[in-house]
């Protein structure tokens, strides 16, 4: 059981480039989330989704886009990379069977914008 899988693990981008961070889960979870973690800080929510076709903004959505065409996949898109987007990105998922369920995290994508 793979859980939450994120690719790539590392990436270096130039300012202005675009890329998609991939996230897939095999637990049939309806709820999925994207967080970023800056050094010495906690995780901040970028976007989340409560099911296929439904997405919503979190605390820090500017500069990012998401889509949710299937239950399994929740890609995060950076259109015009900026140095402020250098961070570690985590994807998470949880079941919607009742509230108060822990989120399960992938191992992250470390992204540097130079």
């Amino acid at each position, binding site marked *: 059981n793979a859980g*939450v899988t994120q690719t790539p693990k590392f990436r270096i981008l130039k300012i202005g480039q675009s890329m998609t961070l991939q996230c897939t889960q095999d637990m049939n979870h309806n709820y999925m989330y994207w967080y970023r973690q800056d050094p*010495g800080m*906690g*995780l901040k929510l970028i976007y*989340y989704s409560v099911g296929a076709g439904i997405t919503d903004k979190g605390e820090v959505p500017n500069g990012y886009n998401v889509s949710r065409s299937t239950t399994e996949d929740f890609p995060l898109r950076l259109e015009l990379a900026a140095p402020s987007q250098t961070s570690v990105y985590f994807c998470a998922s949880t079941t919607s069977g009742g509230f108060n369920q*822990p989120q399960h*995290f992938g191992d992250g994508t470390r992204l540097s914008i130079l």
Partner: protein
Amino acid sequence: DQQVKQNSPSLSVQEGRISILNCDYTNSMFDYFLWYKKYPAEGPTFLISISSIKDKNEDGRFTVFLNKSAKHLSLHIVPSQPGDSAVYFCAASGYGNNRLAFGKGNQVVVIP
């Protein structure tokens, strides 16, 4: 505005002793609290949680205490083991859609 606060960013403790991590929150709507453990180059791993209807939850060596009136929770690890060396994040939810607010984390080092 940080809604979940973890002070004392680092803690060193001898193996076998108790580790106590503290967390304060400001949002009175939070009703579910979690602790996550994180090793370097890995994602956070769920450790233990507590609902606001309880004041204590125990799972093996880990116990979480909740004081709603003080908006404070703590994590006790007894006895501490070298494998417990990690960063611990406190998180809270009350949004009804499982969104979490995280603290900045506490680095715990267990000395053999």
